[in-house]
């Protein structure tokens, strides 16, 4: 069966520090991968998606970047965090051609 791992679960970082969140998927190959951010009362906002290794599309301009160095690995990064980067970050995957996506357990990031 397929599983998705996302870590860390919680993170507190000072303003201006770098960020690296990692997500890996097991039990499937060539998935579509996604990073979402969830803010209270605002639903889920798609940040990045990837249809293959090295292929990253950004949905919104921001202080973050994403990379996909391996087929089932997706990384969310920032060189210098802002207070506004605080939020709940979710990684998700889907099978190509299928409408449903499956989510990791999320990382709660607090920038102080």
């Amino acid at each position, binding site marked *: 069966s397929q599983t998705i791992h996302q870590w860390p679960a919680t993170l507190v970082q000072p303003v201006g520090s770098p960020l690296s969140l990692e997500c890996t998927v097991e039990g499937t190959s060539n998935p579509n991968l996604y990073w979402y951010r969830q803010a209270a009362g605002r639903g*889920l906002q798609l940040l990045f998606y990837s249809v293959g290794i090295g292929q990253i599309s950004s949905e919104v301009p921001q202080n973050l970047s994403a990379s996909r160095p391996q087929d089932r690995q997706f990384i969310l990064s920032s060189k210098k965090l802002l207070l506004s980067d605080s939020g709940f970050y979710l990684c998700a995957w889907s099978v190509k051609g299928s409408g449903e996506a499956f989510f990791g357990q999320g990382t709660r990031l607090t920038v102080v």
Partner: protein
Amino acid sequence: QKEVEQDPGPLSVPEGAIVSLNCTYSNSAFQYFMWYRQYSRKGPELLMYTYSSGNKEDGRFTAQVDKSSKYISLFIRDSQPSDSATYLCAMSAWFGNNRLAFGKGNQVVVIP
């Protein structure tokens, strides 16, 4: 107009009642319709998935899609305290990236 509208107001019901949730959407290209359940501080969990108009039943849960009205619903029968969570509607079209558009979510509290 947002792609997906979901009235985010909280909903409190007594145990055993029927919970009714709904979303409207504006994009006629949406073909896949999902309901996710999200417990506090956890990632969303896929609850129901359908790609056609009509009803789909799974235990106590029924998903209803009316493409002509661009309206989807989720019904929870015989609600239990364990159903207390936030419910998010989501939908996607086949753009090649399975991008999901989400509603803001409804927080449901089932009172014992």
